[in-house]
């Protein structure tokens, strides 16, 4: 068989591409399938389980500044959330990272106020964080599935996979997400050695303390809140506390008309629930 140089080069080129490609594909196939079989891994016996974790917040139980501070610090210290506040204590809007914080009523629930409402009510602080929506826009837009839904309803964050495109931050209607604009380790004063930090260039947010749930503990904020201030449970369990509250009392959720299905319910008017 005689062929000219051009044909030879074409055939050589295509076969080497196919050869390399096949080798690469088989190699990656073996790496990716060398996983763990279902028998090799399981949940801890003491793990708390749910079909859909949700939270009920009763702001009437929060009486002092300290009540709020305990909640935010419990979360931020447990999870090595950096504190970029300026030397005088003012907020550093540029580098700020927060998983849970307070916002006044008129800002947490925009459009729900009216001009005759007292300033007192407009300024009433509400604890806000990621709502772990049922239909989260952030999960929809993430190009790498670095943010995704766990089967138990938690909107989780995979910091190993995040490429830092910040699309999830644009998509979140609640402003719940923060980005590491710089190395966070410079601003962590009291490291929790049992939890990692993040690195620059990734997005982070509340994860409903999935690592605590795995060892049978409630989320840090819930534990630190005043009695009855923050309740946590399985909203799809008809016998759970929070299900009973949400069914029998009037609760509101932030921007519920957007169809996101937030999982944090705020009791209006207080309750006797303890």
């Amino acid at each position, binding site marked *: 068989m005689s062929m000219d140089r051009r044909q030879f080069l074409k055939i050589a080129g295509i076969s080497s591409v196919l050869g390399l490609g096949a080798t690469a594909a088989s190699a990656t196939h073996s790496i990716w399938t060398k996983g763990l079989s279902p028998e090799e891994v399981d949940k801890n016996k003491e793990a708390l389980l749910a079909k859909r974790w949700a939270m009920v917040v009763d702001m009437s139980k929060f009486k002092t500044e300290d009540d709020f501070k305990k909640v935010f610090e419990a979360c931020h210290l447990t999870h090595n959330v950096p504190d970029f506040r300026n030397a005088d204590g003012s907020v550093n809007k540029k580098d700020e990272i927060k998983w849970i914080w307070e916002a006044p009523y008129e800002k947490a629930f925009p459009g729900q106020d009216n001009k005759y409402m007292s300033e007192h009510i407009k300024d009433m602080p509400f604890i806000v964080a990621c709502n772990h929506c049922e239909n989260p826009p952030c999960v929809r*837009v993430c190009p790498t599935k670095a943010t995704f839904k766990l089967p138990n309803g938690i909107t989780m964050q995979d910091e190993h996979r995040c490429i830092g495109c910040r699309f999830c931050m644009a998509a979140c209607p609640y402003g719940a997400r*923060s980005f590491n*604009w*710089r190395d966070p380790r410079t601003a962590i004063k009291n490291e929790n050695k049992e939890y990692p930090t993040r690195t620059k260039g990734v997005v982070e947010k509340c994860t409903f303390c999935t690592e605590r749930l795995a060892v049978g503990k409630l989320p840090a904020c819930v534990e630190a809140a005043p009695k009855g201030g923050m309740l946590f449970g399985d909203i799809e369990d008809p016998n759970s506390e929070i299900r009973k509250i949400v069914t029998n009392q009037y609760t509101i959720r932030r921007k519920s008309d957007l169809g996101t299905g937030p999982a944090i319910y705020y009791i209006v008017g207080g309750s006797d629930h303890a």
Partner: protein
Amino acid sequence: MLEKALEGSKTYWAWLMFLGALAMVGAYYYYQQFTYGLGLTGLHRDVTWGLYIGQFTFLVGVAASAVMLVIPHYLHDYKTFTKIVILGEFLAISAVIMCILFIMADMGQPMRVVNIFLHPSPTAMVFWDTVVLNGYLFINLLVGWVTLGSDRKGIAPPKWIKPWIYLSIPWAISIHTVTAFLYAGIPGRHFWLSAIMAARFLASAFAGGPALLIILALIVRKISKFDVGKEAIQAVGRIVAYAMFANVFFLGLEFFTAFYSGIPGHAESFLYLYTGLEGHSELVPLMWTSTVFAAISLFMLWVPAIRKNEVTLVLACIMLFISLWIDKGFGLIIGGFVPNPFEEVHTYWPTVPETMITIGIWAIGFLVLSMLYKIAITVREETAGIEIEH
């Protein structure tokens, strides 16, 4: 044909050196950003996309605009565009390269970008944008190279290139539609949540891209013997006029919905951009410049006498390009983030490193463009007089 980019006059090389130097400066600042983090930009928790993504959004439009030459020429046999099509395709290539560079500059963890392909996410518009942008780059490289190579030999391009040319038409529309979908499906940001977003994007793309092309074609005519033809310039000018009218009209439609409905969420971003909100009016002068330029350029393009005069035509195109750059490359992005989900106003302005990186990437884009155009010009000059068969 590549060697033609490496042969040129002293002016050509001086121009390349200048662009190279700007690119080096950009690279230096990018290294700073890479080691420190994106905190070197003016971005913050409430405005998470700024200059980089704005430039990317704008340049996708410029890239898509090649289709305005491809459709008449290849689909409808409009011979007037025979010489100019290659300039549009090469502009698309350099624009897409700039888009990719801007996205890479904006990533928090650029080393992990491969994750988009390792863990594809069909619901994510960014995933589709990556796919279609890379595909468009490939198509334009293929089509541009093959057609120019055939022109150089004085023969018709091989038949197998035709399907690729036809593919580039819907593909061009798709790259800008997908980019618009990045914004148009976000539930929390009412400034962007508009069905007409994709249509606006396409209209501004088909105005801005060809406007740049007119400017470039006239520069090419001045510095070389390659003349795309007076008719071609005028035809592109007419396309720019119609597209700009559509763009301005669509913007007007947005204003109507926002203000007539009276819904504060829809109107507040417009107020921030055009009148200032809560004492913050940093973007107001820019946005009004954009509006005034748009109005003047539209008028100039509309009046045939002004459009037919190539000097005033160029002036109109420059104003139009600047106007659209401000509107799409800056105002659109910032407007979506201000006010934030808590209805607070936290503003954004690019920093020096951010600006230098942006200029560096534009320099790389123009570097690629200059080299590609040098090849195209040389081929056209060599084959002047020989009829091109497309």
